[in-house]
């Protein structure tokens, strides 16, 4: 008997007006699997990622999480989103709350944890992302890399089954990318199920189980990282990788 995948996408299409961002995507993510979603800008990677917690609604096709189709906007969807952590390119920390409050806010107000428990856990999470001294700092007082690590801790505080990373290092200075990738690698090693939209090929190769390459709204090639990076099968993937390596 096979274990059903945690995330299952079937024939997912998404149009923005006349532009078709996703043109029939099938994707399974097994529990504990780390999938890197790579491809050129505009290939639909971010849209796909945002469809999984329904920040974008699909035009057609189905998405199920843990066997449950994505519900309509409302309580059921909010409950489901609470189990799916998301990390954004632009961090989106809440600027009027401290790092600690950013992390403990949703556990208190959504998961209905006690304030004391939520703060204890928030401190543990801050320590896990290496920022235990920044609990009382506001986002404006943190560097980009620090903000993104707080954002990861904020998502983890909801005890998600799945973490979505939407280009988490694309807005960061090079010296800050490493600290964020390190936190993500640790998370991957701990067994978290992850979908990572990224341009960091090193991370895709070393921390992920599978690489999905997107082009023009479709997944045109998927393989384990070793095979994908060393022997890409499709011409489009070869072209994409050659451009990465030759500049």
């Amino acid at each position, binding site marked *: 008997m096979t274990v059903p995948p945690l995330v299952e996408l079937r024939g997912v299409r998404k149009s923005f007006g006349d532009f078709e961002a996703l043109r029939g995507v099938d994707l399974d993510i097994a529990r504990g699997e780390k999938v890197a979603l790579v491809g050129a800008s505009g290939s639909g990677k971010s849209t796909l990622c945002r469809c999984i*917690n329904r*920040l974008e609604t699909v035009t057609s096709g189905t998405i199920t999480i843990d066997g449950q189709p994505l519900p309509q*906007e409302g*309580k059921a969807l*909010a*409950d*489901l*989103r*609470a*189990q*799916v*952590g*998301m990390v*954004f390119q*632009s961090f*989106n*920390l*809440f*600027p*009027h709350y401290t790092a600690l409050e950013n992390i403990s*806010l*949703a556990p208190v*107000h*959504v*998961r209905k944890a006690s304030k004391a428990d939520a703060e204890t856990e928030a401190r543990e999470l801050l320590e896990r992302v290496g920022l235990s001294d920044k609990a009382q700092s*506001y*986002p*404006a*007082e943190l560097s980009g890399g620090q903000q993104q690590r707080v*954002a990861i801790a*904020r*998502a983890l505080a*909801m005890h998600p089954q799945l973490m979505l990373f939407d280009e988490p290092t694309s807005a960061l200075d090079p010296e800050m990318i490493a600290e964020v990738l390190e936190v993500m690698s640790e998370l991957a090693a701990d067994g978290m199920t992850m979908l990572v939209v990224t341009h960091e090929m090193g991370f895709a190769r070393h921390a992920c189980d599978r690489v999905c390459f997107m082009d023009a709204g479709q997944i045109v090639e998927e393989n384990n990282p070793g095979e994908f990076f060393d022997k890409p099968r499709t011409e489009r993937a070869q072209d994409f990788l050659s451009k990465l390596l030759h500049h």
Partner: protein
Amino acid sequence: MNEIGQMLADNAPFLLSGLLTTLLLTVFGFLGALLLGTTIAIFRVCPISPLRVVGTVYVEFFRNVPLLSLLILIVFGLPDIGLLIPLFWCGVLGLVLAGSAFICETVRSGINTISVGQSEAARALGMSFTTQLRLIILPQAFRTMVQPLVNNFIGILIGSSLAAAVGVSDITNVTQQLNIQYAEAVVLFLLSGAVYLVFALGAGGVGSWLERLVAGARTGGFR
């Protein structure tokens, strides 16, 4: 000149009661309008389309009807349907209804200044629409709304003078009555004008102070 001094001295308690009435009309009117206007603004941005329609119709009606017509409608219309409200509260009601339509638009544009990423982050954490507004959007939006809200406050303050026309004894009404008695129009209306000016300048001062307070906070650098 002495006569004017005598007139003011003789009627000091009357003038003071008018001043107090103007102040109370404005404060109750503004607070009520802030509450109602914020509620209507939430209607206008909420995901439920019938509520959005209600919000739009409300704003378009109360923003575009002259306050004086509204006050007359309240004072003479409500008793017709069996609702007897003290005159002062009729004035407050008119100011709340008209003021909230304007404050609604201030709050709505304040909400629109908050980046969509804030709302996405809140939704991604499983927050409901109301939790999102209460914890994430409105606290940030109100920081951008201080000066526009001062404008709304001054609008309600100056609008409150129309309550005089339906018989509320505010400063305008009181000076009007004294003018009938003493025929000192210029002095008396300069006096009531000065009251509005001082209150409005005070409101502006409080607004600037609030704005500095918000900007001076450690979170102020976020924009």
